[in-house]
């Protein structure tokens, strides 16, 4: 018998009052899905934001009741209300936001919460809690308060809370989306070990293609329907279809596809990195020296100088913590600078010192050569020059329409009503927000649109320097790429200097002129992509992983092939292979 079986499942959200009775609302969020999972299987569910995958997941553990069709969980009918608790016991769920699923104020009490709900005796609860915390490597923090943990640690506590209930199946609903690379890797390792060693059925909803490759089967959803399904191979062989669905190809598959198009005899089913490496080894490479196209731009004028800046939180209290230690670097006019580091490395604190939101405990910040905390400098003026877009900026909307909200900044900065409106219209055009959306409420927009509208609110203040704190966090691949394109446009069309905070080398390498790597409040390395990567050992320690393309080249080197290591994206890789692959 199959563990989960779904037949033509449909679900529509109950309409509340008049407002929501728009056509959009009455449509089925899940619209005729056939799905099945065997016990112990690892299934990945992909799809862009709003494709219905989260709604579908909530049907599987009976948070929602199917409007039409059948769902059976180990033979239990999900349409029958008396099975609710048995199904939820069998199918656990870890949600996206780690903060919003922790109930108790002590880690172990939270892990016990679910087990207490299903009526286990207290001695066994203690045992189960300990075992679950051990499985996620959080036993040491059992007595801590959750709000003192990092996002990744919180998410591991959430996983432990489900594990302790001993479910047969766990659904991870974009559970890695809000974590940094270290946090993500730990969760993925836990998932794999549960699946392989404990035979737990895993349903992983994700935007990361590398994660989908680990699965036994992949389902891709679109508009509430299953658009593609099969093994990762069967799914990712449809490159055109994958792109149409707003997803990305795994890097190995992408490179393989593109060199095949150039006329090389590459198998069409190359999906995994190792397969591409094997192919290249078999085919062989010609020994032609690689000289990287030097398209470095030269920047002359410094716009922001950071000199020996230190910052201590909660000075002279029990919770004193040094967030920045003697940090110095320059930002040049017209460049895109990236600030990279793991959660808690001090990068968010650092950017807040750049526009005077935080006053450094020691050191100087110069804007255009002038000390921003000097007597002759109006600190409010710096906020006009240096705009900052916070993490998840869409959480700061407060007006009824996105247009009104975007007016807030420019009006505060002293623009006249007419000028402010012009600025906002310009900014919206810049980030690709259509005029039809101007009068919409923020709640009516998609995740990517909301993010771009919020960024436009800061661009409309026409700052000279724009700082973006993790601008792509939590977006699907389509949303991510749009933001990255916007960033390039801001520099090229609006002549802005951009400082971008990120924890992914993947996205930084393709776009940044200079990279500043931070770890534990200090600058580890500073320079362009090549300079930073020449110190690879440092990066791993700082919890920063190289881009996927780079990983493939490293694998080739490990196999004894001499290839350069300064290739970071698919375009460069294809260019490299084009001239050197022996035609077979």
């Amino acid at each position: 018998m199959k563990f989960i079986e779904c037949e033509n499942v449909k679900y529509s959200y109950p309409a509340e009052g008049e407002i929501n009775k728009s056509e959009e609302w009455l449509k089925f969020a899940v619209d005729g899905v056939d799905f099945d999972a065997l016990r112990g299987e690892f299934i990945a569910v992909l799809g862009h934001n709003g494709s219905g995958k989260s709604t579908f997941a909530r049907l599987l553990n009976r948070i929602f009741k199917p409007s039409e069709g059948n769902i059976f969980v180990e033979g239990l009918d999900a349409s029958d209300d008396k099975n609710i608790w048995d199904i939820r016991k069998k199918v656990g769920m870890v949600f996206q936001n780690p903060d919003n699923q922790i109930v108790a104020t002590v880690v172990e009490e939270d892990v016990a919460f679910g087990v207490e709900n299903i009526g286990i005796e207290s001695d066994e609860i203690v045992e189960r809690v300990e075992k679950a915390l051990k499985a996620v490597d959080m036993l040491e923090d059992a007595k801590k308060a959750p709000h003192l943990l990092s996002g990744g640690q919180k998410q591991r506590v959430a996983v432990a809370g489900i594990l302790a209930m001993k479910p047969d199946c766990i659904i991870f609903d974009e559970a890695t989306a809000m974590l940094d690379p270290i946090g993500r890797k730990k969760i993925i390792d836990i998932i794999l070990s549960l699946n392989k060693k404990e035979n737990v059925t895993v349903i992983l909803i994700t935007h990361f293609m590398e994660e989908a490759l680990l699965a036994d089967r992949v389902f891709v959803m679109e508009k509430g329907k299953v658009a593609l399904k099969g093994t990762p191979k069967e799914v990712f062989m449809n490159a055109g279809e994958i792109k149409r669905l707003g997803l990305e190809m795994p890097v190995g598959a992408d490179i393989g596809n593109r060199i095949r198009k150039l006329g090389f005899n590459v198998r069409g089913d190359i999906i995994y990195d190792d397969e591409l490496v094997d192919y290249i080894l078999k085919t062989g490479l010609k020994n032609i020296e690689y000289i990287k196209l030097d398209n470095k731009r030269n920047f002359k004028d410094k716009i922001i100088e950071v000199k020996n800046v230190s910052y201590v939180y909660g000075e002279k209290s029990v919770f004193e913590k040094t967030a920045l230690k003697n940090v110095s670097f320059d930002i040049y006019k017209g460049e895109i600078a990236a600030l990279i580091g793991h959660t808690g490395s001090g990068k968010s604190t650092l950017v807040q010192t750049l526009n005077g939101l935080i006053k450094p405990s020691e050191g100087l910040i110069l804007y255009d050569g002038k000390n921003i905390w000097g007597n002759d400098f109006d600190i409010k003026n710096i906020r006009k020059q240096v705009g900052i877009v916070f993490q998840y900026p869409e959480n700061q909307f407060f007006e009824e329409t996105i247009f009104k909200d975007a007016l807030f900044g420019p009006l505060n900065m002293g623009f006249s009503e007419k000028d402010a409106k012009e600025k906002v219209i310009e900014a919206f055009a810049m980030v690709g927000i259509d005029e039809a959306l101007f009068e919409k409420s923020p709640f009516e927009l998609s995740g990517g649109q909301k993010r771009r509208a919020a960024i436009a609110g800061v661009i409309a203040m026409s700052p000279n320097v724009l700082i973006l704190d993790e601008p792509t966090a939590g977006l699907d691949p389509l949303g991510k790429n749009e933001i990255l394109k916007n960033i390039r446009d801001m520099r090229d069309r609006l002549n802005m200097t951009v400082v971008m905070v990120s924890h992914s080398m993947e996205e930084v390498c393709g776009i940044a002129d200079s990279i500043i790597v931070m770890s534990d409040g200090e600058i580890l390395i500073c320079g362009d992509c090549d300079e930073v990567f020449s110190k690879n050992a440092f990066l791993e320690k700082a919890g920063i992983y190289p881009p996927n393309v780079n990983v493939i080249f490293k694998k080739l080197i490990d196999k004894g092939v001499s290839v350069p290591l300064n290739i970071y994206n698919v375009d460069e890789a294809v260019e490299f292979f084009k001239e050197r692959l022996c035609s077979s």
Partner: protein
Amino acid sequence: MFFLKVTIGQYYPVDSVIHRIDPRMKILLLILFVVGLFFVENLFGYIVSALVLGFTIKFSKVPFIFILRGLKGFLFIVSFTVIINMFFVDSGYVIFEYSFFKLTLDGVWFSFQMICRLGFLTAASSVLTFTTSPIQLTHAIERILKPFVRIGVPAHDIAMMMTIAIRFIPTLTEEVEKIKKAQMARGADFEGKGIKKRAKAFIPILVPLFVSAFRRADELAMAMEARCYRGDIGRTSMRKLRFKVIDYLSLCVGIAFLCSILYLNYSERT
């Protein structure tokens, strides 16, 4: 990431005899102490109370200065009542007189009593909150209220609401800080003059905060349901509160205190 560490309540996390007493017992002992305090009629009674309180604080390993700081808030109320009592009680031996001000021995005695009672009461309750974590207090309140479930007191719901409130105080505090900074970066001014202007300045903070709080509530409710939460139906608890030797011992101390106060009152009268 913010390193903003918010202390909830004023729990002082060390291991001491007082910390180890069952929270239910501590609440009971506090009640005993307060009752005793209001029976005190003479100076000896206050000395005994002070001794009991002093030793409790000593055994709790909470620095004395912390307790004193806790009293600061009541200073105004206490000094206000003291002044009123001092000058408006006009019975007894007159110590000092100037126009209509009259300071009498009874007035001083009344004021002294007032200081002792309010001060001891505040100090004793802060010993409770210093030595008992909010979560333990919540557990204790749930247990204490349990007998009243039959007459419709939602003991479990009250405890769950308290737990969630305590859990989300630091999260929401961080959130306020973040939203405030984000709006400041957009030129918001929170130091404007005039009440109306200032109130208006807070809309850009309050609206996102409420939106976020509702979203969090929604998601939390769903996560709780996914973990089979259905109120206290069939729910067990990891930590069983059980009275131990130390609890019975402390109860004996409490009863001894009450008896000695009553005895002192009795011996004074005879």
